[in-house]
C-alpha cells in the first residue's frame, strides 16, 4: 500500500469540481473518485468537465454511482438499463475504469436473488465493450444485498469477470457485521474498498428528556479520526492475507466537510493516509488492473 495507490473521493469535499481536483492534487493525491453528478452539473457542461478531469493530471479510479438498478422489471428495468448505459459512456469519457453500483433499495426491486444476479450479469456485459469494471456495493435497506455477504452472493451468482464488489468500511463497521462479515466473504472479487471511519452521534433534540428515543447515527470521518481505527487497520491486514488487489479510496463526506474549504479537507485526507501508511508500512497490496490512460475513439 502506498500513497499513489489510494484515491480521494471528491464527494468528501465542497466547491467546484476544478477546486476539488486542485485540492486533491495539492495534497498529493494522484487518483480520485468522481461523481457523475459533479460532471454533468458543471457550469460549463459535461464535455468541459470531462476535459477538465482528463487534463488535470489525476487518474480517475472510479465513477459513482449507479443506484437502484437491479431487480426491476418492465419499463423500469429498461429505463435503468439506459441510465446504466449513460453512466458507462461517462466512465469511458472521463477515463474511469470502474463504475460503482449501490444495491437497489426501492420498493419495486425484486427480492429474488436470481433476478438480481441476472441484472448484474447484464450490466457487466454492457460494460465489456467499454472496458469498464463494475463494483457492486451493499446498501442498507436493500432487500437482497443489505450486507457484504449477501452482496457477494449476488456477485458470485452473476459470475462475470468484470463484476466485483465494493466495500464501504463506514457501513461495514456500523450497519454491517464488521470484520466478522469480511471473514465470511471469499473476497476474491473485491474491486474497491472505500476507507472511512465513523463516530457515533445521536440525532435529535439534545434538550429532549426522551434521549432514549433518539436514533443512533454516525458521522463519517477519515480513517484515524473515528472509533473503528484499529478495526480498519486489521481489515487492511486481512485483505492482504486474502490476496486483495483492488483499489482503495478515502471518503469522508459529511455535513461539516461540506462547509469547509476543499483544500482543508484534502489535507485532512492526506494526514489520514499518512496515518494509515505509518501503521501499514509493511503491507504490500498489488493493483489488479493497469490504468487505462488512452482516450476514447470518436
Amino acid at each position, binding site marked *: 500500500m502506498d500513497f499513489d495507490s489510494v484515491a480521494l473521493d471528491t464527494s468528501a469535499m465542497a466547491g467546484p469540481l476544478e477546486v476539488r481536483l486542485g485540492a486533491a492534487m495539492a495534497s498529493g493525491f494522484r487518483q480520485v473518485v468522481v461523481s457523475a453528478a459533479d460532471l454533468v452539473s458543471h457550469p460549463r457542461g459535461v464535455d468541459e468537465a470531462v476535459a477538465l478531469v482528463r487534463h488535470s493530471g489525476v487518474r480517475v479510479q472510479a465513477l459513482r454511482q449507479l443506484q437502484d438498478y437491479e431487480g426491476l422489471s418492465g419499463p423500469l428495468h429498461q429505463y435503468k438499463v439506459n441510465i446504466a448505459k449513460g453512466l458507462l459512456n461517462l466512465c469511458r469519457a472521463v477515463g474511469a475504469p470502474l463504475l460503482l453500483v449501490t444495491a437497489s433499495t426501492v420498493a419495486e426491486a425484486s427480492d429474488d436473488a436470481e433476478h438480481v444476479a441476472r441484472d448484474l450479469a*447484464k450490466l457487466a*456485459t*454492457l460494460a*465489456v*465493450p467499454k*472496458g469498464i469494471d463494475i463494483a457492486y456495493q451493499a446498501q442498507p435497506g436493500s432487500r437482497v444485498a443489505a450486507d457484504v455477504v449477501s452482496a457477494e452472493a449476488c456477485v458470485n451468482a452473476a459470475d*462475470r*469477470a468484470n463484476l466485483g464488489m465494493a466495500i464501504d468500511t463506514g457501513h461495514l463497521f456500523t450497519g454491517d457485521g464488521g470484520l466478522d462479515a469480511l471473514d465470511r466473504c471469499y473476497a476474491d472479487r473485491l474491486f474497491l474498498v472505500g476507507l472511512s471511519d465513523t463516530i457515533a452521534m445521536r440525532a435529535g433534540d439534545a434538550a429532549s428528556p426522551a434521549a432514549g428515543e433518539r436514533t443512533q447515527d454516525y458521522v463519517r470521518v477519515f480513517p484515524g479520526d473515528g472509533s473503528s481505527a484499529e478495526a480498519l487497520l486489521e481489515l487492511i491486514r486481512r485483505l492482504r492475507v486474502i490476496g486483495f488487489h483492488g483499489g482503495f479510496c478515502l471518503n469522508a463526506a459529511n455535513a461539516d466537510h461540506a462547509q469547509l474549504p476543499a483544500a482543508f479537507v484534502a489535507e485532512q485526507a492526506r494526514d489520514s493516509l499518512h496515518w494509515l501508511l505509518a501503521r501499514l508500512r509493511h503491507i504490500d497490496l498489488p493493483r489488479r*488492473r493497469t490504468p487505462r490512460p488512452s482516450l476514447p*475513439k470518436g
Partner: protein
Amino acid sequence: MTARDLVPEPLNPLGIDGVEFIEFVTGRPQALGGVLQRLGFAPIARHRSREVVLYRQGAMNLIVNAEPGGADPSATFVSAVAFRVRDAAYAMRHSLDAGAWEVPRRAAAMELNIPGILGSGESAIYFVDRYKDFSIYDVDFVPLPGTDSNPPALAGLHYFGLVQAVGAFRSSEWVDFYRQMLGFRQLTEADFVGILPKGTLLQSPCGRFYLQLIEPPEGAEDIHWDDGLVRIGLGTPDVLEAMRVLRERGVVFIDEGALHPGEKGALTQVYLGSVTFELVASRFAAG
C-alpha cells in the same frame, strides 16, 4: 423454415453457421483494394449510393467501406464481422437481453436492415439470416460489369478467424462476452493453431471460426494498445502452397525473429500501417 428450425440448439443459441462477411473501414480504398486483390479477393460489386465495394474470394465476402465520417480519415481497420445465424431477429433480442449495445443503423455499410451489436473497440457484430436462398448484396450492390461474381478461392483460402486486441487483464471478460452472447467456447492451449499461439482462443459454436484474444505483452506499458479487431486469419489446407501462390502475386510474408512462415501458418507484412493477414493450416474447405 419450420418451427423446429427456429428453436436454437442449446450449445449454439443463435444458430451460428459461419461468417457472412467481414468489413474494413478505410480512408484509402484503392490502396486497400490493391492489397486485397494480391490476396486473391476480387471486387465484384459497388454499393448503389455509398463509397462501399464488395470483394469476394470463394466463400469469403469482404466489404471495403470508404464512407467519410470516421474519427481518423486515414485509418484502415476491421470494422465489423457478420455471422450467419438461424434467426437474426432472435439473435438480436437474445443479445440485447444479455447486455449488448445495438449499433446505430446509419453507421452501417448496408442499407438493408441488418441488426448488429457493438463489439470490440468501435467494431460491430452483425447477424445475417438470409444467406441460403437470398443474397443480402442484391439489395444494396450493383455488380461490376465484366467481373466474375464468384471468383474461386486461391489455395482453398477461407475465413478462419479474427485476432482481437484486448486491454491488460481483460481477456476473461471478453471470454464471458462471447460465451454468453454468441455461444463461443474457450479452447485449451493444446488446441492452439497458427504461428502465433498465444493469448486466449475461442471457437464458434459452429466450429468453423475462431477468435484469438491478445493482451499487451508484459513490460509493454508504453505501447499504444487500442481494443479492436487487428487481423484476419485465412484458413488453407496447405499453407506452403498458399504462400507460394500469394508470393507470386506479390504478397510478402514476415520471416524474422520468432516469426517464420511454415506448415502451421504465416503472417503477411503490415500493409497501410495496420493491415495484416495470417495464414493458418485449416482442414475446412473453401466452401
